[in-house]
């Protein structure tokens, strides 16, 4: 009987990232093909990306302040 393969948490995180990247690629292809044009993608995408990055940045900043 084969032993269950141990997966380190780091490998698990990398696998999750790979799955997420693949899902993002599929989502991007879907969005680009369904949108009326890349102008629409840019119009909605740029603020979404800026807000998302600001959200993550804000979270990290708060976490750093709390850990002090």
């Amino acid at each position, binding site marked *: 009987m084969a032993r269950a393969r141990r997966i380190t948490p*780091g490998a698990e995180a990398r696998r999750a990232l790979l799955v*997420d990247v693949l899902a993002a690629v599929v989502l*991007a292809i879907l969005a680009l093909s369904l949108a*009326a044009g*890349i*102008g629409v993608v*840019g*119009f909605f995408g740029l603020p979404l990306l800026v807000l*998302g990055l600001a*959200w993550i940045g804000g979270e990290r900043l708060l976490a750093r302040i709390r850990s002090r």
Partner: protein
Amino acid sequence: MDAQIAEDPVGARRARARPAPLAPWRRLRRIVLLATAICLIPAGVSYLGSMSGPHNVGLGVTSVEWMRGHGGNGIVSQIENWYYTLTAPSKGGPALRSLPAVGVAGGGDGESASQPYRPPRIEPLIHPALPGEGVWRAAAAHAGPEPPVLLTTFRSDPEYPQFVAGVAWIDSRRTRLAYVPGLAEPPEISNRGPAEVPPARRRGLVATFNGGFPLETSNAGLVYRGHTVETMVNGIATLVEYRDGRIDIVRWEHGANPGPRVWFAKQNLPPIIYGGQLNPNLSDGPEWGATVNNAVRVWRSGLGIDANGNLLYAVANDQTVGSLAEILKRAGAVRALELDINEDWVSFITYRRRGAVDPSNLLPEIYRPSDRYLAPDERDFFAVYARGRW
């Protein structure tokens, strides 16, 4: 686990240092942001490529035009509708004491047996009339007894007594109209040319004025030098030049094929005046193109033709499609189409001296520079050249 930690203290420290697996919503956020970043790559490449080309308008206008041209026309039009509705002018207000000076010399107020045809004075709508209101004046100092272009201004709406319309009359016997493709409009064309009035032809230049809507928003066709650039559409107002040089504004009914007689044809939306009457359907509808609503007050321009076959150009701020049609009808147009709109695109320029020297906008509020068409321009436009001696 405790036993494991006791056996392997280094591994235990690593395990404690590693972050916990991402919560599902954080993974979803990551996926969405990654997808957005991927989507923005082709958009960014296209945008930067477009911005790196030659332009004669600001980054904001160019960006809006890029978005219009890449599927975002509906969004841009909706935002414009909101903006212009919120900033709509109020009725009434103090009366004007004078009108902007146009032209250089008296052009005559009417026809007489001894003189060539001149359009009659535009009857003022608001009384008492202001000095020079509706009176035609020659556009150039050296125009002689038969000026090819006459200019005037008048207050176009009694409910808005501060609105001033600029009107130009172009003598079709003494001029020749030329369509000039711009840097970006029409988007697909062979023999685009210099996108400005060619220097070699400037000696005979009398006037220049803006073209119509971009092809993608005008529901319309274009024929350039006898070749179909965009398929012609029946029922659409069409400025047409025949190979014999004759100009007309018609409601197109000849199908997709322009035929051998047509040298140039530019379509733009349904006619706003036809058979001397306003189009009864000047309210909004899909036939009016993918642009701001017809009832929105904005800079608008239009081109008409009078009963004698001469062209009439009108431009004014804060106009609806209906009020623009009223201006052209009052000026004598029996058929007319709407041309481009918005402060960024309307221009009517005359040249007070030979050789395209001393250019002047028809209305002082037109913010685009008066030498606009003497350098490459974004959009297509029309140049008016004098026939014969000038």
